[in-house]
């Protein structure tokens, strides 16, 4: 929203250079499967992307001023929908993948319409309880979800065009990687448009000053529900991809901790931006967590991860996330500008 009345000319190097750096970086990431075939690296990256989508969803909900502690429940919904449709009912992959997100979105819509009447902490707690309920149902509803044994899903079918096989998910992980990239890209584009359009502003309004926004004709419920639903849809798709990537879904995959982690990634990454923040936060913190997971000293991982997050928070400037450090880096260190304003809500 900050670029109203700021001329963006082609000569505006302060805008072009950072963007091109980011672009270069993205291209490099896209080429990773070409450089390396390492299963470990590629699969970690894929999971990073999947979680990043979930974090983006959380950020969108956060943008309307609501703190959801149940986001991983929507991943579970999407994942289970896809798994049940493909394995239990024997539907083909693509339609069931498509449906999975819609189902999770629909449920988000229904829950949102009821629950979002209750704002703030109450909403957080209710979503937490909701997440637990989803987990327990997945555990107890044995005939459908196969309880704690979970459902083994299969890889997506190879994409065949004019007789010869283009993509095969069984032979390498690269297809999953690009599948993930597509999902992230679609989510990013949608969220970017939301951020740019009137929706974005309205979300800001509902978050920053609900009473005032309401007196200026904004129906708070409507916009909170919209944000919650859209987040639900994409989180659901992330869950479905996750399920088909690990080729198994059990009730232990998406729980309270996962929701908490999504929260941490997104907020540390910076809720000021709908796309950069969550992706950056997830990319850094998730992989830190994975790397720490290599230790087999019990407790060390949790301890270090927690400490790192706490330390990061203590050194972040007021109300800024990691993504804002990127801007600060260019303005303060590279261009040496005097004053800089973050353009995000400070509570």
């Amino acid at each position: 929203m900050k670029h109203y009345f700021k001329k963006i000319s082609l000569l505006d190097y302060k805008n072009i250079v950072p963007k091109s750096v980011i672009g270069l970086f993205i291209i490099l990431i896209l080429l990773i499967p070409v450089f390396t075939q390492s299963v470990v690296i590629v699969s970690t990256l894929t999971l990073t992307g999947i979680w990043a989508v979930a974090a983006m969803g959380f950020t969108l909900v956060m943008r309307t001023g609501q703190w959801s502690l149940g986001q991983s429940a929507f991943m579970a919904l999407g994942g289970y929908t896809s798994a049940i449709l493909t394995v239990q009912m024997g539907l083909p992959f693509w339609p069931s993948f498509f449906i999975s997100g819609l189902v999770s979105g629909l449920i988000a819509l229904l829950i949102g319409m009821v629950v979002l009447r209750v704002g703030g902490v109450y909403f957080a707690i209710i979503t937490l309880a909701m997440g637990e309920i989803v987990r327990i149902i997945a555990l107890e509803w044995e005939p459908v979800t196969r309880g704690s044994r979970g459902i083994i899903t299969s890889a997506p079918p190879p994409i065949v065009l004019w007789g010869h096989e283009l993509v095969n998910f069984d032979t390498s992980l690269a297809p999953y990687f690009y599948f993930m990239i597509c999902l992230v890209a679609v989510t990013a584009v949608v969220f970017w448009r939301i951020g740019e359009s009137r929706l974005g502003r309205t979300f800001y309004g509902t978050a920053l000053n609900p009473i005032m926004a309401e007196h200026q004709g904004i129906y708070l419920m409507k916009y909170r529900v919209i944000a919650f639903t859209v987040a639900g849809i994409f989180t659901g798709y992330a869950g479905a991809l996750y399920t088909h990537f690990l080729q198994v879904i059990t009730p232990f995959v998406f729980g309270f901790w996962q929701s908490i982690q999504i929260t941490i990634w997104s907020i540390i990454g910076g809720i000021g931006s709908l796309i950069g923040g969550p992706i950056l936060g997830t990319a850094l913190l998730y992989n830190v967590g994975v790397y720490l997971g290599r230790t087999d000293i019990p407790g060390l991982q949790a301890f270090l991860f927690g400490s790192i997050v706490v330390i990061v928070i203590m050194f972040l400037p007021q109300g800024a996330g990691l993504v804002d450090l990127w801007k600060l880096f260019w303005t303060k260190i590279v261009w040496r500008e005097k004053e800089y304003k973050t353009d995000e809500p400070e509570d």
Partner: protein
Amino acid sequence: MKKLRGLVTIILVAFMAIGMFGIASAAAEEMTFINVAVISPLSGPAGPWGQTGAPLYDAWLELFNKEGFRVNGKLYGFKHINYDSMNTPEGAAAATKRAIFEDKVKFIVGHWDATFTTVQAISTPAKVIMLTRNGNEAVAGGVYDAKKMPYVVFATPANEMFVNDIKAIVAAYPKYKRIGLADATVGKGVGVDQIDKALAKAGIRTHREWYPQGTKDYSPYITRFNEAGCDIIYLASDPMATMLILKQRWDMGFKHIKVGATGGMLSPGMYISVSGKDAAQGLMAEDGDITLIKKTKINPKYIKMYKDAMALVSKNTGKPYYYTDWTAYGPTHIQILAQAMVKAGTVDDPDKIMKAIRGGTFDTMVGKYTMSGAKTYGSPIVFGNPGLMSKMQGEEQVYLSESPWVPVP
């Protein structure tokens, strides 16, 4: 002068020693080590089991490698690599991928936790042989399909062990009218139905209760057991639940209800400290202490190994070690693997090794058994060991009874 001579002699002796050592080492044919992955939860609530097991596996393996085994003339030994599965699919997947694709491990042994599905989904396509326990398969539809999992060996029959435990209890206390079976809801599945069928077939009356994982207040369930007229509440692992039920049934005054648990006691002291000494008396638990086994014949060499391993661990950790229920997992798996390799005459062709395992007979820590090729539950490859029960007396666990291995139909 004397000094000097002394010095010289010392130096000479030293040189000789070194020389001889050199010759000796040269003479000793060195051993090629085969890496095997042990994927178990080391962190989180399930951590204690993994942590308690790991040192025993390693100590035992040390003894095993003393002689190793020969495959067409070459001497081999095994090397453990421990991975933390965190008992979650994502953690297990990461661990398995590291094991298989980074550390190039070709065998997974001693696996027992809830991540079977995940590990299997990665190991089978990579043609990595996995030795695990049955009871938590997530085979789609619950029906085993050898084509789906050609490299999985259910080398520890958790279900059968459970049934045998109950039989052992009944053998020890014939007058028990009804056995109460308690388990966390995460334990639900086909395996449980099989167990119940088997028990019904053996003419044992049971009453089941499910509780949510991590429950702290068991009084409702204990009351329900009491109302169902159970003489004993037998839990399927989860030490916390065992200890709390042990204590709470005592506090509620239901002293006549006994408590038992599969999975073995981590250490009697723990149960006493949590449940109280009086309450803990008579706690029955599955026991892997093969020195106690009476009805099943076990290779004395292995019994010695067992004793040595326990001693070694106690020495390393510097505190007495009680956990005995490890014999059926890591060591047994290693022995099966080694003997199969010898029989197959190869250490790296998974298909040949599997061929040797199917229906083969193996002499292991828990006795001499033949892999059933028959269609037992879940897998055609189920390996047997006896249900040995011990009970807490004072601060020791002592032999109670046992029931030899019977496969569950």
